[in-house]
């Protein structure tokens, strides 16, 4: 799996070098240090140990960011994932300065074409349409490409009668694409409606952070909604709320456990149980024939 992504990244870079004059490659910002600092407890953890522990801090249990390619690798039966629409390209509809080059740079840095990877894979033998957002890509925000990739995935799942699992990790709609981004909320939600009407299972899996236009569209529309421990789930940003209501936010506000108490999450699932939980649910809803 990892290899596949690596190969694709290399091909992409080769192709880019062909169409653009080669630029001096800057060293990556990501530290290749031996240790990684936990974003929650602040302790330094051996990077290798952290990875073995599925990027969950072995000391405090914090679920740190897990990038889409790694999550897919952890999730699907080995070699079963087939990516879709990995070369889809959008437009700079607002003519936003620097937007195109920002996308290019992120593509080079991450090897992804946009903030979501979509495709078909098997989870303990169950063929499933899978979409995983990646927050490295402009906060995992949803612009036209993300909206289109998710919609195409959902439509494919509806046609092929496949269950659907979408992992959200997003700051919401993508500002740089203006109103077009906003409309992706309607587009994806409408596609989800048809998937539901076909009697198929949709599991929304919320990870840190699930906010704004993604919460207010496909992420909230699962038959079953799962969430990673302590991940942020909400519509409005905390700073905006604080400024509006001029009071301190309650303890644990907008966290997965809090939203579960409020009735918007079925189960908070630790990462080590992600695969087995999904496998159980997928098998439970398995449709023969």
């Amino acid at each position, binding site marked *: 799996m990892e290899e596949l992504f690596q190969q694709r990244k290399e091909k992409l870079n080769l*192709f880019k070098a062909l169409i653009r004059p080669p630029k001096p490659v800057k060293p990556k910002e990501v530290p290749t240090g031996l240790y990684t600092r936990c974003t929650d407890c602040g302790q330094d953890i051996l990077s290798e140990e952290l990875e073995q522990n599925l990027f969950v801090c072995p000391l405090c249990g914090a679920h740190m960011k897990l990038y889409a390619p790694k999550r897919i690798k952890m999730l699907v039966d080995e070699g079963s994932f087939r990516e879709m*629409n990995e*070369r*889809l*390209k*959008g*437009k700079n*509809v*607002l003519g*936003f300065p620097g937007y195109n080059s920002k996308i290019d740079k992120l*593509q080079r840095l991450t090897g992804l*074409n946009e903030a979501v990877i979509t495709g078909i894979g098997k989870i303990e033998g169950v063929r499933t349409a899978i979409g995983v957002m990646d927050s490295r890509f402009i906060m995992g925000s949803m*612009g*036209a*490409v993300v*909206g*289109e990739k998710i*919609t195409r995935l959902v439509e494919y799942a509806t046609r092929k009668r496949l269950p659907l699992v979408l992992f959200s990790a997003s700051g919401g*709609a993508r*500002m*740089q*694409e*203006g*109103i*077009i*981004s*906003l*409309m*992706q*909320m*309607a*587009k994806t*939600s*409408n*596609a*989800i*409606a048809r998937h*539901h009407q076909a009697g198929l299972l949709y599991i929304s899996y919320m990870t840190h952070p699930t906010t*704004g*236009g993604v*919460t*207010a*569209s*496909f992420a*909230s*529309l699962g038959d079953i909604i799962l969430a990673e421990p302590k991940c942020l*789930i*909400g*519509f*409005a*940003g905390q700073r*905006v*709320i604080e400024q*509006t*209501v001029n009071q301190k*936010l*309650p303890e644990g*506000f907008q966290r997965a456990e809090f939203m579960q108490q*409020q009735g*918007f999450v079925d189960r908070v699932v630790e990462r080590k149980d992600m695969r087995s939980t999904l496998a159980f649910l997928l098998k439970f809803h398995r449709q023969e024939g």
Partner: protein
Amino acid sequence: MSLKEAEARVKELESEIEQLLRHNDPNLDTDSIRHELTRARDKTLKEAYDNLTSYDRVYLARKSTRPNARDYIDALFDHFFELKGDRLAHEDASIIGGLAYFCGVPVTVIGTVKGKSLEENLTCNFGMPNPEGYRKALRLMKQAEKFKRPIITFIDTPGAYPGIAAEEHGQGEAIARNLMEMGSLTVPVIAIVIGEGGSGGALALSVANQIWMLENAVYSILSPEGFAAILWKDRSRAQEACEFMKLTAQDLYDFKIVERIFSEPRGDLCDNAQIVYKQIKRALQETLPELMHMTPKALVEQRYKKFRTIGDCSDNAM
């Protein structure tokens, strides 16, 4: 000169005219001076309205004197019978909805309401709905579907309310559900943006077969202030943001999100609202029968396609 400045100038000129008339100095040629001043006033106004920037339109769209959803309902429909509450928790007065006749045809009308005074605004929360408002709207839309009535929504909101209780009660879920359910409604839905179309809070009432906008209404991903705050960490660059965001009726028409634009008169809309009411009435008279002739399936399909095609992407273009 921005519209705001032009308005200040017009006010000055008008007070000069008033003074002139009040004193009625016999040594002055009152008539000709008045004529001059009136001409200057009209010219200022015309110039400002002929060269409206996006920022000017945001200012116009937000004006508290602008007719609100209630005014449109009163002007365009007969026997409006308001229905309240989401049947789950609350009544949210920032969304008004109910039954009415349009030219004898039973319809369901729903709209986000902004107040014209502080008192009104405290009741309707400045047009910012809580989840209960969206759930009420959905209840009324499902009811319209049951009785096969067309739905007409009026949109004028800064956005969904960013409050603590709103989050606790699932603001995101409420909007998401409206998007999904509206997409599947088997009756005609027409959404009319009459003022501010703010973000997901506006979208939650505009998954329609057709979206119409007033000339100076705006519809955007976020308020220009919020946009500037997110992208440039500086709310004060809202004016600059407006020119970037492509939020005017014409912009949305060019994006094929909006099907019709209603032209507005120069000056305060509240002084000449009839001009707009007439256009909307005519448009509804034209479009409603067309949509009502479509089969439920065709209506759903057309709505699906309308949103499906927004956001062009190309394959293999990397």
